[in-house]
Every structure is written in structure tokens, then in C-alpha cells.
């Protein structure tokens, strides 16, 4: 039987995101929300150095649910399938993967369900504590029937005179699944009053994160850390919150603290590695990725990163072998596309534009939605003076990834060059919205404004 790690992060569904009734302020004060347009102010590396996700948040070093796409601005973005995620957003987090678990268990039992829940006398089982706990776990995890699980938990906690912290935590879990965050918060807090548990702190932090109160979540985790000093899962949770709030320096500090406790924590190693890579220290990033390799992680992504680190740290003998290994380890077209994309960058770096062109084309052949490759290909076409092709490619790129500033800026430059000042201005404004501090965009806008003001 497969257990889902309940305390781990889960992705918000479309329904929760668009019909959110828990958020208090439409426009939260800066630094107090996970969902604001983070493109405004960048603490860490600028998007010119470190690529960003759809929501304008720097890419993380470790793919978790929710790190890929962030909160969508429009309904269209919400229902579009994000790149590198294999499913569109779940409708609600109550459906999706949990339901699929339920159906998967049903498929394995063609004779019908193991226990018929509708015939169960829940109040009878609630009186025998040991059986009730097992039954609850079966209903909650295997059958995924939150309503019955809640009923059983309510009866059982009543039977235990509201003194058993375990049942309170289970009640909280049920409420959380049902989206009743305030009730869940009450149950978890009440459970904490009986018994300090790491899990309970984590659940509570998760509730606050879902209610978009990252600062409360952080203080909750701190409280947990006071009680359980240097607890790995709590440190990891704190680091994740910092990362989501764009505070990469403190996220890295927490990850480092975590590594002191558990030096095989893959997520921490990967995140610190990518952070070093994007802050211009590829040689250190290389060390971290090598550590991952030593630990037995052996996949396409890792070799991809190793190859890039070698390239930027000038260890030329290792670059292409790493990428070759990555290509041979790639499991699907998307991974192949990423390898070719990075090889394209290497080719640009060594000045072989012909090879770069082929690499970017191969990226597109393997992954048709690779917006960055479209953009780079357009730049190469622009160099060949193929204006129409470049324009079409840039338009495609901008349509695929409206959060990237590069296609908008390149389109603005191209339009400016051929004298179409109006489109240049429009595109430059979009680029400015995606990356307000981009100096070249500002200069172009300034130039265009002067043009327009001139008689």
C-alpha cells in the first residue's frame, strides 16, 4: 500500500486559486503574502541572470508541486498546461491526485471494495480506540472518503473526552482536505496544547501557508524549532517558505542548517547548488551536484546541471561528456529538449552559431512549447536578417510565456529597427511589466518617448 506523505506540500487547484475566499486583502502588503506579483522587486538575482516561473518567482533548484507555475494571473493561464508539469492544474486539491489514489485502489480490487463504508456503524467502532484508528486510516488514505473519515474522527474524539491529541490532528487533516482552514487551525492548535508533535507543527504551517499567511506559518515553525531544535522537516519547511517569498539568501541559510543535520537531504543540496550557480559561483554549485552524484542520484537533470556548471566554471573537458550522458539518460522528449537547449547555450558560448541554431531547432522538435528556445532561435534569425521569421518566433515565444521579458524586449528591438515604433513601444511596455528594473528596456522606452515627443 502506498502512503501519501500528508505533511508534504500539495498544489492548489484551479478552484481554490480562482475562487479563493480565505485571502483577506486583495493587495497584500509587500513581504506578507505568497501570491503577490513578485516581479516588482527582486531581492536576489535579477531575472536577467536567474530565469523566473510564470508568477515571476526565481526558479527553484528542486521541483515541488507549486514551484513550477505559481499563481496564475488569468483563467487562461490557470487552465493551460504548464511546461514540465505533466498534468494541468488539478481542479481542486480535493480531487486530482487523491481521487486517483482512490480509483487506483479500486482497480486492484475487481470484486468490489474491501469494506463497504455505507454499511459501517461508525459509532460502534468509535468506541474501540485501537480499531478506530486503523479504520480511520483506511477510510482516509485508501478510500479517500473524507466525509466518513471526519464523522468517525468526530465520534472518536468525543468518545475520548476530547483529550486524545491524535484524533484532533486527524480531525484537522479532514477539515484541511475539505478546505475548512480555520476549523483545521483550531483542531491542530488544540492538539498542540495536549502534545507537542513535529507533525502537528507542520500541518499547522501548511494551513497558514494555504491561508496565505506565510509570516504566521514561519512563526509557527519557529515555535516548533524551539520545542524540537534542529528538526530537519521543520527547517526544510522554513526554507521553503523563505524561498517562496523570494528571500533566497535566508532560504539558503536554512538549507545549510538543514544539511548540518542531514547531509543527504537531496532538496537542500539541489537548492543550495542552484543558488550558487545563479549567484555566479558555478564551481561551488559543481561541488554540490557532485555530492548528489555520489549519493546515487543518477538522472538526466543532474548531468544537465553538471554540464552547465562545468561550462561556466571553465572545466571544458567535462562539459560535453556530461551532456552526452544526460542525453542518453533522458526518459522523455522534454528532458531531451532541455539538454539540447543547454547545448545550444554552450554552442553560443563558443561562438558556433550554426551548431546553436541546430540545437535550438532540435529543442523545438522535441518540445514544441519551449518558449526560451523560440526566443533564442529568433535572435539567431535576426542575426541572419530574416526579420519575418524572427518576428513570428518572438510572437510565439511571447504567447507561450508571457512572464518572460526577453521575447517582449527582443520584439521591441526588432520593431524599433524596422521602424515600427508603435509595436516597439507596446512590446517594450510589456517587457517593463515583466521586469521593471531592466535597464535596456528603460533606455529603449526613453528613446521611443523622445521620438514621440519630437515635433
Amino acid at each position, binding site marked *: 500500500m502506498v502512503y501519501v506523505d500528508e505533511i508534504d506540500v500539495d498544489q492548489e487547484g484551479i478552484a481554490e486559486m480562482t475562487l479563493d475566499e480565505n485571502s483577506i486583502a486583495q493587495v497584500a502588503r509587500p513581504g506578507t503574502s505568497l501570491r503577490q506579483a513578485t516581479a516588482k522587486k527582486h531581492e536576489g538575482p535579477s531575472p536577467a541572470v536567474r530565469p523566473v516561473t510564470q508568477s515571476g518567482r526565481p526558479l527553484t533548484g528542486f521541483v515541488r508541486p507549486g514551484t513550477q507555475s505559481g499563481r496564475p494571473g488569468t483563467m487562461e493561464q490557470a487552465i493551460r498546461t504548464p511546461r514540465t508539469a505533466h498534468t494541468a492544474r488539478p481542479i481542486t486539491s480535493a480531487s*486530482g491526485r487523491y481521487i486517483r489514489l482512490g480509483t487506483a485502489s479500486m482497480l486492484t480490487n475487481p470484486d468490489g471494495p474491501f469494506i463497504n463504508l455505507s454499511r459501517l456503524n461508525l459509532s460502534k467502532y468509535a468506541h474501540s480506540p485501537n480499531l478506530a484508528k486503523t479504520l480511520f486510516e483506511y477510510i482516509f488514505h485508501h478510500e479517500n472518503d473524507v466525509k466518513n473519515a471526519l464523522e468517525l474522527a468526530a465520534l472518536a474524539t468525543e468518545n475520548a473526552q476530547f483529550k486524545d491529541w491524535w484524533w484532533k490532528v486527524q480531525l484537522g487533516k479532514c477539515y484541511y482536505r475539505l478546505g475548512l482552514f480555520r476549523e483545521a487551525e483550531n483542531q491542530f492548535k488544540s492538539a498542540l496544547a495536549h502534545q507537542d508533535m513535529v507533525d502537528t507543527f507542520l500541518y499547522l504551517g501548511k494551513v497558514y501557508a494555504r491561508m496565505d499567511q506565510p509570516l504566521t506559518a514561519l512563526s509557527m515553525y519557529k515555535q516548533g524549532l524551539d520545542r524540537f531544535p534542529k528538526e530537519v522537516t521543520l527547517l526544510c519547511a522554513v526554507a521553503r517558505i523563505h524561498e517562496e517569498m523570494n528571500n533566497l539568501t535566508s532560504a539558503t541559510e536554512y538549507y545549510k542548517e538543514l544539511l548540518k543535520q542531514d547531509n543527504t537531504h537531496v532538496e537542500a543540496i539541489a537548492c543550495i547548488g542552484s543558488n550558487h550557480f545563479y549567484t555566479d559561483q558555478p564551481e561551488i554549485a559543481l561541488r554540490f551536484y557532485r555530492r548528489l552524484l555520489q549519493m546515487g542520484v543518477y538522472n538526466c537533470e543532474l548531468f544537465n546541471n553538471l554540464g552547465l556548471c562545468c561550462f561556466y566554471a571553465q572545466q571544458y573537458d567535462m562539459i560535453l561528456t556530461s551532456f552526452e550522458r544526460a542525453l542518453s539518460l533522458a526518459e522523455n522528449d522534454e528532458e531531451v529538449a532541455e539538454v539540447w537547449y543547454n547545448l545550444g547555450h554552450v554552442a553560443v558560448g563558443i561562438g558556433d552559431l550554426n551548431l546553436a541554431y541546430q540545437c535550438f531547432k532540435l529543442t523545438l522538435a522535441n518540445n514544441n512549447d519551449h518558449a526560451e528556445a523560440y526566443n533564442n532561435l529568433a535572435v539567431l534569425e535576426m542575426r541572419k536578417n530574416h526579420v519575418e521569421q524572427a518576428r513570428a518566433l518572438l510572437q510565439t515565444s511571447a504567447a507561450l510565456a508571457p512572464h518572460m521579458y526577453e521575447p517582449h524586449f527582443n520584439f521591441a528591438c526588432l520593431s524599433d529597427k524596422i521602424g515600427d515604433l508603435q509595436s516597439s513601444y507596446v512590446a517594450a511596455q510589456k517587457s517593463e511589466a515583466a521586469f521593471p528594473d531592466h535597464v535596456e528596456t528603460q533606455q529603449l522606452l526613453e528613446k521611443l518617448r523622445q521620438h514621440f515627443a519630437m515635433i
Partner: protein
Amino acid sequence: MSSSADCSREGESSKWLDAHYDPVAGLNTFSSCIALADLHGDGDFKMVAGDIGSGPFNMKLKVYKGTSLMSENALLDMPTGVAAFLMDQNEPRTPAVAVASGPFIYVYKNLRPYFKFTLPALEINPLEKEVWDQAKEDKIDPLTLKEMLDGIRDKAEIPLSVRSLRFLMLEQQEMEAFVNTYKQLPLKRQVGLPSVPALLDVNGQYDIEYRITVACRNGNIYILRRDSKRPKYCIELSTQVVGMVRVQKNIIIGTSQEILLGYSQKGKRLWTVTLPAPIMTMALLEQKSRSIQAVLVGLKNLEVHLYRDKNLLSVISTPDIVTSLCFGRYGREDDTLIMTTQGGGLIIKILKRTAHFEDKDTAPGPPTGQSIKLNVPKKTKLYVDQTLRERENAVAMHRVFQMDLYRLRLSAARAYVKALDASLAPVSSTMQEPLTLNAAVQGIGPRFKLILNLQNTSVNRPSMQLLISFLYDEQLYRLRPAFFKVPLLVPGLNYPIETFVDCCTDKGISDIIKVFVLREGKSTPLLTAHINMPVSEGLVAG
């Protein structure tokens, strides 16, 4: 940085008192249409504002007393200027209000219409008049008329009227109609300037000596004097003038390029200041008790800047974009600043009597960017070790790299050829049919929307006779039309083609759908796009 900004903000609040703010006063006006006057001779100054209303309707002359509206008079036309002046020597000395609108000046006395004054036409060239008189009596044909007018234009002392100038610009066949239309009307000369005036400033006395400064729509500023018929001085700017204020003997000009310029009376440029945002309006601040004269500049970034010469004295933050400014005595308070906003709001602020403006040079020393330290990470020991390794094994590393590079080139070329042969890429590389294809999937299932964006990237050749077909697992998906024709593709336009895909499995698995763009009569595709279908959520949830 932030603390100093806070300091200056505190300084602002200690200089200005917020007297009144009404965001819904419904007052839409410009700086030239506001005047402060003691209308009843009782020492209580009122504000007279020509409200432009909402477009061509509801134009009103409004009078405010204190914080409330005292009276309203309807105006016939859009007001362009409002001024209060003393008409007579009678006691009590109550000023009349003049409102300029269209070619008329309406004078109100005791807030009642008193008389209307029509701007007189300027004298016209006698030769020109004679020529037109002849045309009126059909003595000359349009061609001769044109020749004669041309001759007058070249020599004459008094410039031609607008009508003659327009006539000279016309094509031959249009001349006749023009002459027939206009020959009956009396001739007028209205413009003595080379261009349409936009802003005016007058000082001096009419009988003795005066100066009129005119900013025109062609971006030039002309300075006229009493005894000259033509502009005495001319300032040529490269941009439109949006505001002009005279401070003592200098002229301060705001242009549409976010620049404030100072000129002397003779048209010599004295200084230039670059502003942070476009200028909305400008007005003069004159504090008589301290004999301070400065310029108020309303900016688009919700700020009002106060400049004395090129020095920024004070910054006032406003809740909305300010469209008009007026400073002077209002009510019984000497130094009142009246602002109206874009949303029709009215803001009244009072300058504290203790307020003291300090001249600060706006650009002292090097720019602030110079002192910001860049966050450059230190080179680590690891890096040094690696460079050592690089130095020692340079030859070997280079050889390995070159060999790998050759192999990479070969494998890339092979993969590329393979992709080309099968037309796997979504960008076609043939010169005959330059196309790009991009597919997107929307939805959560079981019915997905497939959007194919097809674009012809050739310069001027439309694409015709193209077909689209799909390749998919029939057990998993159902596509309604799985094969259809593409319309003619005009170069440069994006053609979104939409179709629906039904997922007919409930096992929670997904597959790839391939899209081919084909040319009629050929089996090899021009383009291929692979769509990774998402897992259908709808079926399992429902």
C-alpha cells in the same frame, strides 16, 4: 535612503496645512481657468473657476467660497481662460470676471452677465482685399487670382489672411469651388503669428510698454512688444510646450519631454531641469510677505514640485493627478494653494506662515549610483584551484573538448537531419513554405480544447492548399474532425485553429497527439507538432 526621504516628507507636512480635500467635487478645469478675487469687496476672497464639465456639456462658471460652492452660471462654450479685473473706480472696489471662450470674452459683474466682447479682426492687406473684391464681382478667374495673391505674399508688409493662404495651397480644380464659396464673405485677418497660439503671458501696461509671450503649437515661443508688428524674439524648441510661467523677468517653460527650461526675457536659455514625470500643469507661486516667487509644476506621478530657478524647493504628494494649480489669497488666508485633480477633485492647502524654503541644489556632486556597491561574489579558493588545474592541463583539456565538440557536431547534425527528414520541428525550414506551428492545450478534461497557432512567415507569399491531420491513439482520444483544410494563410498573421479532443479513458493515463501540416498531394508533412496531453481530471472527479 529611505530615512532621508522620510525626513523630507516630514518637512513637507510642516510646510503645508491640509485645509480641504473633496475627491468628488466634480470640478474639471485648467490652471488658466481659475482666478482668485474679492468679488464682493468684503475682504473674503472667492475662487472663480471655469468648469469644462464633461466634454461639450455642462460647462459652468463656478464660484467657491471657503470649502463650499457658492454659485454656478452656465456657459455657452468651452472656457479657455478666466480672469478677474477692476472695471471702474467705484467704491466698493468689486472686480468683474472675464471668461474667454471661443472668439468672445464674456464679462460678468456681480456674477451676472454684463457684456460680451467680440475679438476684433485685424486689418487686412488692401491689395489682397481688392483682389478678392474683384473675384467677388467675377472679374478675374481663379488662376489669375492665385498669381496675384502669390505676388502679394512675396512682397507685402502685412501678411495674407488665412483664407488666401488656404487658397494658395489648393489644387487647380478645387480653386473654383473655393472661390465660389468664399467670395461673398468679407475678408478677415485673424492671426498675426506664424502658428496657432497655445499659451499666453502678458505683462506691462498697454499704453506704455508691454510684452506678450506666446507659446505656439509649432513648438516656438514668440515674444511680442508694443511697438513691433512682428514677434521681437523667437525661441525655437524641438517639442511641444505644455506650460509657461513668467517669474519676474524670466520665462519658465515646461515641455512635453519632461524638461523644465528657464529663458531670459530676450530668449536666452538660462538653465534646464529634467523632471521625473510628464508635466500636467504649471503655475506661479508668489508669496508677497517674503517676496518669494517660484514655479509650481504638477506632474503625472502624483506630485507637485516647487522650483525656484533650477532648485527644487518642495515636493507635495497628491492623491490624484493634478490638472490645475492656483496660488494666492483665498478666503482670509494669504498663501493658499488650490489644486483640482483629473478625477474632478478639489484640494486646498495652506502654506504655513512659519514655512521656510531652503535652496538646495538638486544635483550636488556625483550621481547617487556611483556610491552603490555592486554585489560581486568573491572568487573562492575552489575557483583558484580549478584555474590552476586548467593552467596545468590546458593542452589535454583543449584536446578532449575539441574531440567532444566534433562528436557533438556530428550527433547534432545527425539528429537535425533526422528531424528535418521527418519534419519533426514545428518551424519549417524549407524556403517554399516558411511556416511555424505552435499547439496549446487548454482545459482539465475530459474535453480539451486544442489550439493550433499557424503562421506564415514568408515576406509576401500566401500559403495555400494546406491540410492538417492528427495522429493519436483511438482508444484514448476522440477528435471530431481529425482532418481538415487550412484556409489561405496571409503572411505575418497568426491563425488560431481550434478543435476539441475528448478523452475517453478513465484510467488516468495520457498520451501524445501528433499534429501534421501537409501539403495537398504530398504524404511527407511540412511540420509536426507533438502535444503532450494532460491527464484528464474531469472524468475522475465527475
